């Protein structure tokens, strides 16, 4: 099936539209409430990064596509910004567990949350940043076919 595509200006004000669309799509697919909340946060983290790091002039756009299948939903978030060391970023992403107060940073939780909340996180950095977030529909709530 054709994916559902959403394009928003690369500005924080429009990220809630991504959550709204995602909510509509994920509800249709039979995801649980908890899975939907997890995906909303993960997709927002990807969009936050696209706005903050992927749009140097904040004049660009962010392309989001939702790829539905019977078993999973893949959310692709694409910006036109500079590349970064995403392998290291994904590997080093970590929580605050076992840290000292003095070592806490107020940033750096985005990639960690995406990895924790989704089943799969892939980054393609060849031309802007293309981040793919995948979540499987769990057995008890799998897609009802029409």
């Amino acid at each position, binding site marked *: 099936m054709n994916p559902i595509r959403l394009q928003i200006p690369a500005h924080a004000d429009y*990220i*809630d539209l991504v959550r709204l669309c995602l909510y509509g799509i994920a509800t249709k697919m039979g995801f649980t409430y908890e899975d939907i909340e997890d995906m909303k946060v993960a997709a927002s983290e990807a969009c*936050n990064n696209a706005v*903050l790091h992927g749009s140097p002039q904040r004049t660009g756009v962010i392309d989001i596509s939702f790829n539905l299948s019977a078993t999973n939903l893949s959310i692709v978030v694409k910006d036109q910004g500079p590349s970064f060391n995403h392998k290291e970023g994904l590997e080093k992403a970590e929580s605050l567990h076992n*840290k000292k107060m003095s070592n806490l940073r107020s940033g750096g939780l*985005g990639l960690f*949350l995406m990895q924790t909340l989704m089943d799969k996180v892939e980054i393609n950095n060849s031309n802007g940043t293309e981040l793919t977030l995948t979540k499987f529909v769990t057995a008890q709530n799998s897609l009802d076919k029409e």
Partner: protein
Amino acid sequence: MSSNKFQIHKQETDQDNVLNLSGELDLSVAPQFHLALEPVVKQQEKTLILNFKDLKYIDSTGIGIIISVLKIRDELQAPFIVREIPPTIKRLFDLTGVSEFLYEGKENEA
């Protein structure tokens, strides 16, 4: 834009500064949250209380701001309490590990 997606209702007593958060705390409203914290985060003599009861959404933007509050209050050795965290938000606090640094106070406690 006027979406009123995030609101902060402030209650001030002799002992406490309470910020009641409601709606969606995301990147777009981070400046609004910073602005509300600014006059209270360095008041050492009062307990700073964040009440999350009506908060529907948070992500690393909001958690990052809470971490910065935690660090400022810790340095000042000033009391900081969080209250009434809804399950979906608690889950994110636990996953990120910020829970370990938060002191959850009950109503009638400062």
